[in-house]
C-alpha cells in the first residue's frame, strides 16, 4: 500500500536520506530499525508530509502522493505517533483524543458530552483506566502514551506509524499496545513500527527493513533473520561485542554508599540500597516504580522526607547536590537535554562544568587548560565532534551522552549513578558507554545503572536490585539474573 522508491532528502550540510526504498503492505507490521541518525525520523517525517523529498517517489494506495503538509498526509489516512508526543498539555484527555475530529452535535457545535462518552469508551476498549477529564499535563508519561494511541484509533487509519512507542511504557501496557496493533493488522491497516528494542520486533513484526547512514540496507521477513544478524546489519559488528566481561567477584570491594529507608516525593516509600566499590549494580523495575526518584534522593536532587545516606563515614539526613558532588557522587540524569547538558555551549565547557575549580585560577577559567582537558577526553571517549569548541546541540545523542559521561568521570571518585544512560543512543555508542561504565568500576567506583532495557541489565549488571511500588522488591546476582526473574520480582504483588 505504501511504496517509496529512490527517496532522497538533504538538509544544509547533511544528506539525511539517499536512494531510500521501503515497501509496506496492508495488514502487516513492518519494523524499521537502524542506529540513531540512520534516517528513521527523516523517513517518518517524509511519509507524514512534514518534509518533502528532494528526489524519488512515494506511492500510497496505488497513487503517486505529494503531501505538502502533515494535514494532507493525515487526510490520506496516515497517522503518526511521534516519540515526542503531540499532546496539548492544558487540554483534557478527551479533548486531546478528538482534536481535529471533534464530536459535533446540533449546528456543528462541539458536543462535549458525546466527546467525553466516546473517550471513555475508547479508553475502555484500549483497556486503560485514565480519567477523560484530567488535563494531559497531569498524566504520567505512560498514560500520555496511551492517550496518543487512543488518538490513532479515533478515525479510519490506513497507515499507522509508531516511533519508539514502548520507550516509556512497560509490562501490561506494552501487552495492551501489542493487542491493539494485532487487531489493527487484522483489519488491514499497514503499520510501521520503529523501535530500539529488537526483542519486540521479533515478537510483533512481520517484516523488517534496516537503515544505515540514510541508506537502505536490507528488508527481510522477521522469521528469516535473528537478533544477531539484525544487529550486524545495523552496525556491522556482532552482539557479543556489545557488553564487556563482568567483574570478577574477587575484585568487588567494600560498601561505599548505603541508603537506608529512603522516603521521597511520594514515589519512594522506604527503600534501602547499598553500593559496593568495583561493582555495577542495576536498578530495575517498571516505569513509575520510583527508580529515578531514589537515585535523585541519594544525589540530593529530591528531598528525603525520611531515611539517610551513608557515604565516606558520614551520615546525611539532608543531602544536596553540592554535598553529593563533594562526596564524590556523580549523576547522569535521564533527561540529558533538560537536566544535563548546556545544549548551546561547546564540548569543553560541558565537560568541565562540574569541576570548574580544576581549570580555574583566581576565579577565572583558563580556556587553554580547559581546551587541553577537552581534547584528551574527546580522544579517550572517541567523541565524534569538530573539536572542543563544537556546540553540543549539533551532535548526535550518543556523543552528547559521552560528553556527560566524561564530565562525571572526571569528578566522581566513589559513586556514579546513570539513569537510562543509553536511551536514544545508537548501538555503537551504547557499546562505548558500556565499556566506560566497566572501566569506571574497574577503577574501584561503585556504578549504579537505572535501566528499563532488560538485555542491557542482564548484559551489564553484577547485581540487580529490583524496585516495585517505591520499595525494594528483591535482589538478584550472578546466575539468578534473567529476564524472567527480573520481571517476576518487578510485577508480583507485595505479600500482605
Amino acid at each position, binding site marked *: 500500500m505504501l511504496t517509496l522508491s529512490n527517496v532522497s532528502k538533504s538538509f544544509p550540510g547533511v544528506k539525511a536520506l539517499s536512494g531510500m526504498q521501503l515497501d509496506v503492505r496492508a495488514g502487516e507490521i513492518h519494523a524499521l530499525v537502524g542506529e540513531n541518525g540512520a534516517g528513521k525520523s527523516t523517513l517518518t517525517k517524509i511519509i507524514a508530509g512534514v518534509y518533502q523529498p528532494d528526489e524519488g517517489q512515494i506511492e500510497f494506495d496505488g497513487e503517486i502522493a505529494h503531501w505538502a503538509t502533515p494535514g494532507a498526509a493525515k487526510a490520506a489516512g496516515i497517522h503518526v505517533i511521534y516519540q515526542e508526543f503531540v499532546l496539548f*498539555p492544558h487540554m483534557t484527555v478527551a479533548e486531546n483524543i478528538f*482534536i481535529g475530529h471533534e464530536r459535533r452535535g446540533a449546528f456543528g457545535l462541539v458536543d462535549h458530552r458525546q466527546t467525553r462518552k466516546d473517550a471513555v469508551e475508547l479508553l475502555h476498549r484500549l483497556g486503560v483506566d485514565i480519567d477523560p477529564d484530567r488535563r494531559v499535563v497531569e498524566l504520567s508519561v505512560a498514560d500520555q502514551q496511551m492517550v496518543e494511541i487512543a488518538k490513532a484509533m479515533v478515525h479510519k487509519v490506513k497507515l499507522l506509524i509508531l516511533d519508539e512507542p514502548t520507550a516509556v511504557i512497560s509490562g501490561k501496557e506494552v501487552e495492551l499496545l501489542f493487542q491493539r496493533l494485532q487487531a489493527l493488522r487484522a483489519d488491514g491497516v499497514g503499520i510501521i513500527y520503529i523501535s530500539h528494542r529488537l526483542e519486540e520486533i521479533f515478537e510483533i513484526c512481520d517484516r523488517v527493513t534496516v537503515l544505515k547512514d540514510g541508506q537502505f540496507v536490507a528488508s527481510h521477513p522477521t522469521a528469516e533473520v535473528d537478533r544477531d544478524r539484525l544487529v550486524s546489519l545495523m552496525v556491522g559488528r556482532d552482539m557479543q561485542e556489545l557488553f564487556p566481561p563482568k567483574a570478577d567477584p574477587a575484585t568487588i570491594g567494600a560498601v561505599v554508599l548505603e541508603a537506608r529507608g529512603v522516603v521521597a516525593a511520594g514515589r519512594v516509600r522506604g527503600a534501602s540500597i547499598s553500593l559496593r566499590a568495583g561493582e555495577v549494580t542495576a536498578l530495575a523495575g517498571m516505569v513509575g516504580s520510583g527508580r529515578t526518584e531514589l537515585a535523585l534522593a541519594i544525589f540530593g536532587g529530591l528531598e528525603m522526607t525520611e531515611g539517610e545516606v551513608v557515604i565516606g563515614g558520614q551520615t546525611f539526613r539532608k543531602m544536596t547536590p553540592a554535598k553529593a558532588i563533594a562526596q564524590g557522587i556523580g549523576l547522569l540524569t535521564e533527561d540529558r537535554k533538560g537536566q544535563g547538558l548546556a545544549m548551546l555551549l561547546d564540548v569543553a565547557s560541558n565537560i568541565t562544568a562540574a569541576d570548574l575549580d580544576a581549570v580555574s585560577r583566581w576565579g577565572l577559567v583558563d580556556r587553554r587548560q580547559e581546551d587541553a582537558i577537552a581534547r584528551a577526553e574527546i580522544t579517550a571517549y572517541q567523541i565524534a565532534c569538530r573539536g572542543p569548541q563544537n556546540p553540543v546541540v549539533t551532535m548526535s545523542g550518543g556523543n552528547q551522552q559521552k560528553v556527560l559521561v566524561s564530565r562525571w568521570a572526571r569528578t566522581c571518585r566513589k559513586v556514579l549513578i546513570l539513569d537510562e544512560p543509553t536511551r536514544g543512543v545508537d548501538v555503537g555508542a551504547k557499546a562505548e558507554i558500556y565499556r566506560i561504565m566497566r572501566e569506571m568500576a574497574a577503577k574501584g567506583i561503585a556504578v549504579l545503572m537505572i535501566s528499563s532495557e532488560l538485555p542491557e541489565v542482564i548484559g551489564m549488571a553484577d547485581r540487580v536490585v529490583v524496585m516495585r511500588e517505591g520499595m525494594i522488591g528483591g535482589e538478584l546476582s550472578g546466575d539468578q539474573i534473567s529476564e524472567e526473574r527480573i520481571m517476576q520480582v518487578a510485577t508480583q504483588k507485595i505479600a500482605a
Partner: protein
Amino acid sequence: MTVIRTRAQSEFLRRNGSQIIVVGLLVVLAIVGVLVSDRFASVNNIMNILEQSVTLAIVSLGQTLTVLTGGIDLSVGSLISLASVLLSGITNGDPAMVFPAIMIVLALGICVGLLNAAAVIWLKVHPLIVTLGMGAALQGVTLLYTMGPAGKMPLGFDVLAYGRFLGLPVGAVITVALFLGTAFFLRYARFGRYVYAIGDDAVGAQLMGLPRAKVLLFVYAFSGFMAALTAIFLVSRFGVGQPYTGANFTLTSITPVVVGGTLLAGGRGGVIGTLLGVYLVSLLNNVLNYMDISSHYQLIVQGLIVIIAVSVYVEKKRKL
C-alpha cells in the same frame, strides 16, 4: 464518595481559581469604595463604571484571543487612534455618512488584523514584533491624516456611549453579549478548540494537521475588528476622533487579560476572566478617583498590576 467530591472541588478551584481571586478583589474594592465615599454605591456611579469600562472591555476581548494562541496584538492602540480619526473625519457631521464610515473603519480593523496574521504566518516573525511595527506604522498614517481632532460626529451619535437599553448602558449590554458570544464560540466551535490547541503546542498543532494559518488569520482579524469597534465607542463618547486617543490601550488591553487568568504563553484562560479583569481595573480607577488620586498614579498602578498578575499566574518551573 467523599474522595470523588474533593477531587471535583479541587478541579473546580484549579480551573476557576483566577476568577475566584478576581471576584474576591472586586468585593474588597467595592467595600473600600463604600467606605471612601457615600456616592460610590449610587446608581449613577455604577452606571458610570459600566459605561467607562465598555471601550477597555471590547479591545481586551480581541486581545484575549491573540494571547490564547500564544501571540499578542500591540497594534490595537494605534489602530484605535486611526479608526477614530477616520470615523469622525469621513463622517464630518453628515448623518448620511455615519453608516458608511463605520463600515470603512470596521473593514480597516479586519484588514490590519489580516496583515498582522499574514506576517506572523508567512514571514514567520514573532507577533510581538509584527504588531509593534504595525502599531508604529499606523500611528504614522494617523498623523499624516491629521495632527489634531478630525471632523465631527452628528448629534445623537453619543447614544452608543450614553444611551440606555432596558435601563442599562447600551454599551455595557453590547459588551456582555459580545463576551458571552465569544465564550460560547471558544467552547463549542471547533475553531475555538483550535485557538487553545495552537497556543498550547504550536508544533503539535501543525503535526496534527490543525489549520494554524486560518486560526491566526481569524484571531488577528477579530482583534483588529474589536479595536475598530472600540474606536467607534470612543468617538461616540468624545464626539470627535483624536490622533492619540488609543495610545494607552495597547498596555491596558493586556491588563484584564492577564488579570483574568489567561496565560501569556497561550493555551489556557478565557474571555470571562478577561471581563472580570476589565471590571476590576475600572472599579480600581473609580475608587482611586474617589480617593482623589490623580490619573497619573492610576497609570502607575496599572503597570504594576500587569507585572504582578503575570507573576502570580506564571506556571512555576519544575524543580530538579
